[in-house]
C-alpha cells in the first residue's frame, strides 16, 4: 500500500519543490505535555466556528426591516420583529439541523474564548512568553480581545431582547470615550441608537468576513512563529536543555494525536450543541429599545465588564459643563485596556525586574517562578472577583445575599483578596520547591543507601558517608 504513494509524492515535488519542506515538517518535534495542547483546542474550536458559521450565513438575513411573525412558534405569533431575528427563529424552528448548528456555533464561541484563556494561563505560568516568544504572546493577546469582539458581534446580530440590551450598553460605553466617543459611535452606528439599518450590515460583514480574516491571519502568524522558534519544553531530563529540544515528531507520532484531539473537540462541541440549550432567543423575544428584562447578561467572556460597570460608584468627570469622562468609561474601557496593557507589557516588565535578557526555551514549572506565579494568581483573582460581582443579583435571588452588602464587600475584597493571595501563593511556591528538594535529597540518600547495601551484600566494604 505504501508503495503507491511514491507516484503522488513525485508528482507534488516535481511541481511544487515541496519535498524538502515536507521532509523537514514531517519530523518537526513536539515536546510532549498535555498542557501544550490547549492552544490546539482553541484552534479546533475556531474551525468548528468557521464550519458552522458558513452554514448559518447561508440562512441568516442581516436586515433590520420590520416583519410580522406567523411561524411555528405560537407565543410570537403576530409579533413585530426584525428580519434578522425572524431568520434566526426560522433557523431554530424550520430547518432540520438549524438549531443544532446554531447551538454548536454558540457553544464553540464560548469554548473558543475559554480555551484561549486556559492556553494564556498555561503560557503565562510556565513563562513561555519570554524571549524569543514575546511577539507570539502579543499576537495571542490580540487574538483574545478580537475573539471577545467577534463573539459580541455574533450574538448581537440576532437582535433578541438580551443581546439588544447589550448592544445599547456597547453604544453607551462607546459614547463614554472622552471627547471622541460621540463621533466614533455615530460613525459606527450611522445615527444615534439604535442606529441606521446599515449598521446591521456593518456588524454582519465584520462578523462573517473582516474579523474571521483577521483571526485566521493572526492564527497563521501565531502558529508560524511557534513553529519557527519551536515549542518550549519542561526540563524533564538532562537531555532537555535550552539548546536541544526533545519531542515527538509530527509524523507518525503527533499527527494522529492532534487529529484525535480535533475530533474530540468537535465531538464535544456537537454534543453540547445537541444536549444543552444555549441562547433560546424565542424565549427572550425581539428587542425594542424601550424594553428590558431582569437578569440580562452578556456572554461569559464579557462578564468581567458588567461586573466592573456595576461595581463603579456613580460619578461623571466634568470640566465646566463638558463631560470629560462619563461613568461607563471606567468599567467598560479603562478596565479592559488596563488588563490588556498589563498582560501585553508583562514580558518586558518581567525582563526589567529580573534583569533576565536570556533566550528561554525551557518552560518553568510555576513553583520555580514564585513571584511571577504569585502575581499571576493575584491578577487573575482581581479580574475574577470583578467578574463574579456581575452575577451578584442572581446570587441574591438564589442565596439571599443582599446585593448592597455584596457591593460593599466586593469593592473592598477585590483589592484585599489578591494581595493576600499574592503572599500566600509565593509562600506556597517556595514550600513546593523545598518539598521537591527534600524529596530529591531523600531520593538521592535512598539511592546511596541502596548502593551501600548492595556493596555490603557482595562483601565489598564501603568507605562510609
Amino acid at each position, binding site marked *: 500500500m505504501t508503495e503507491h504513494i511514491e507516484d503522488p509524492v513525485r508528482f507534488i515535488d516535481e511541481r511544487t519543490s515541496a519535498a524538502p519542506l515536507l521532509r523537514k515538517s514531517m519530523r518537526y518535534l513536539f515536546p510532549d505535555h498535555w498542557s501544550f495542547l490547549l492552544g490546539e483546542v482553541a484552534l479546533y474550536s475556531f474551525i468548528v466556528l468557521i464550519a458552522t458559521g458558513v452554514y448559518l450565513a447561508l440562512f441568516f438575513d442581516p436586515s433590520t426591516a420590520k416583519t410580522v411573525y406567523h411561524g411555528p412558534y405560537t407565543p410570537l405569533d403576530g409579533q413585530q420583529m426584525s428580519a434578522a431575528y425572524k431568520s434566526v427563529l426560522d433557523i431554530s424552528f424550520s430547518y432540520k439541523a438549524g438549531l*443544532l448548528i446554531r*447551538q454548536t456555533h454558540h457553544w464553540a464561541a464560548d469554548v473558543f474564548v475559554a480555551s484561549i484563556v486556559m492556553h494564556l494561563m498555561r503560557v503565562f505560568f510556565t513563562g513561555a512568553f519570554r524571549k524569543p516568544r514575546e511577539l507570539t504572546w502579543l499576537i495571542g493577546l490580540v487574538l483574545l480581545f478580537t475573539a471577545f469582539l467577534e463573539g459580541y458581534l455574533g450574538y448581537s446580530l440576532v437582535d433578541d431582547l438580551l443581546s439588544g440590551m447589550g448592544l445599547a450598553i456597547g453604544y453607551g460605553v462607546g459614547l463614554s470615550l472622552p471627547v471622541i466617543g460621540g463621533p466614533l459611535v*455615530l460613525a459606527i452606528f450611522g445615527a444615534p441608537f439604535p442606529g441606521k439599518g446599515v449598521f446591521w450590515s456593518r456588524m454582519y460583514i465584520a462578523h462573517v468576513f473582516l474579523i474571521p480574516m483577521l483571526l485566521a491571519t493572526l492564527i497563521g502568524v501565531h502558529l508560524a512563529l511557534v513553529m519557527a522558534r519551536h515549542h518550549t519544553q519542561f526540563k524533564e531530563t538532562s537531555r532537555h536543555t535550552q539548546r536541544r*529540544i526533545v519531542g515527538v515528531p509530527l509524523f507518525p507520532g503527533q499527527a494522529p494525536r492532534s487529529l484525535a484531539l480535533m475530533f474530540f473537540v468537535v465531538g464535544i462541541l456537537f454534543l453540547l450543541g445537541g444536549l444543552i440549550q444555549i441562547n433560546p432567543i424565542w424565549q427572550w423575544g425581539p428587542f425594542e*429599545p424601550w424594553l*428590558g428584562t431582569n437578569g440580562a447578561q452578556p456572554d461569559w467572556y464579557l462578564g468581567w465588564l458588567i461586573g466592573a460597570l456595576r461595581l463603579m460608584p456613580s460619578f461623571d468627570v466634568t470640566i465646566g459643563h463638558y463631560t470629560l469622562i462619563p461613568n461607563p468609561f471606567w468599567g467598560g474601557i479603562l478596565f479592559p485596556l488596563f488588563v490588556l496593557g498589563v498582560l501585553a507589557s508583562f514580558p518586558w516588565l518581567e525582563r526589567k525586574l529580573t534583569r533576565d535578557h536570556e533566550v528561554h526555551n525551557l518552560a518553568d514549572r510555576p513553583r520555580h517562578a514564585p513571584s511571577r506565579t504569585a502575581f499571576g494568581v493575584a491578577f487573575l483573582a482581581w479580574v475574577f472577583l470583578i467578574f463574579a460581582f456581575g452575577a451578584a*443579583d442572581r446570587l441574591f435571588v438564589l442565596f439571599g445575599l443582599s446585593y448592597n452588602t455584596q457591593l460593599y464587600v466586593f469593592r473592598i475584597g477585590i483589592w484585599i483578596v489578591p494581595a493576600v493571595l499574592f503572599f500566600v501563593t509565593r509562600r506556597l511556591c517556595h514550600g513546593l520547591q523545598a518539598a521537591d528538594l527534600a524529596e530529591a535529597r531523600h531520593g538521592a540518600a535512598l539511592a546511596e543507601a541502596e548502593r551501600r547495601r548492595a556493596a555490603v551484600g557482595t562483601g565489598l566494604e564501603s568507605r562510609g558517608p
Partner: protein
Amino acid sequence: MRVWRWLVAIATFLFGRRVRQERKRAKQREKRQEAEAKDPIVAQGSPERGAENLVVALLGIASLFALGFVVVYALFSPAGIPNELLGICLGMCFLFVGGALTVVAKRLVVTEELEDDYPEAHPGQQKEIVEIVRESGSRITRKRLLLGAGAATAGAVGLAAITPALSLGPIWDTAPLDQTPWRRGVRLVDEDGNPLSANGVAAGTFYTAFPEGANNEEIGSSLIVVRLDPSKLKLPASRANWAPGGILAFSKICTHAGCAVALYRKPTFPVIEPKPALVCPCHYSTFDPYTGGDVIYGPAGRPLPQLPLMVDDAGDLRAAGNFSARVGPSWWNVREAPTSE
C-alpha cells in the same frame, strides 16, 4: 480457440505492461526494504493486531452514528426533530473517530522521542541583510530627504484612504445625539398609538409612552410615566408645573449606558418600605421620581431627564416642552441644555 488466443493477446496487451511494471517495482521494493532495515528513519515497532481490530471497531461505530444522523434527519419533520438525537449522533461519531485515532497514536504508531536543535539567531545573515540594504543605497545622496518625502506622501495617502470613513455617520456634527421627537404640544401615546389620558394614569403603576407620530425606536422617544402624590413632590423650582396632578414623565433610557429603565418600585407601606423609584435592570441605576429623576443608587452619573407635561382640552397628556436635560448615556456635550425649537 482463436477467439481465446485473441482474448489472451488483448489482455496481455492491456494489462501486461502493468504486470511488468509491478514486477519491476517489487524488485525495487525488496532492495529498498533491505536498505531501510539496516538504518530506518522512523523507529520500528511490533505489530498489534488487537489494536488494529479495535480501531476498525471504533470507526465502525463512528460510521453507524454518522448514518444515524442521516436517518434521524430524514425521518423527522422540522417541527418534531429531536435536537438531542441529532447532536448525539454527530457528537458521538466524532468522539469515536477521535477514539480510533487515539488508539492509532498510542498503539499503532511508534511514539518516538527524538532530539533536535532549538533554532538560534543568525548573526551572519543578519549582517548580510543590513549590508545588502546599505550597499543598495550607493546612488542615494540625500536619504533623509527621500525618506521624509516618502513619509509625507504616505501620510497624505493615508489621509485620503480614511477620508471616506467620514461618510459612515455624522461624525463632525454630534447634534443628532441630542435630537428627540418631543416638542411642546406633542401628544403622549401608548405602544399601540392610543393617546394617554391624564385620568387614565393611575397611581402605583408605571406606563410606557411615546410621541405621537414619531419613531418609537429612537432613543429620545420612549417615556416612563408615573403618578405620585403632588404634595410630596420635591421638584426643582424651574419644574414646578411640569407634573399636572402629580403625573411625571421621564426618558425611559438610562443615563448610564442606555438600557430601558423598565422597573418601577412602588411601596405598599411607605412607612417602612423603600420609596418609589425607577430602576434600570442592567447595572441597577436607581432614580428618584419625587426629585425629578435624581440618582439614588447605582453607577449612573446623571439624573434621568424629565419631560414637562400638560393636559390638553380633551384630557390627554401632551409634552409641554423638551426634556430637562439631554437624553441617553453621557457624552462630551451631554450636559449642555437640550436643543429645542
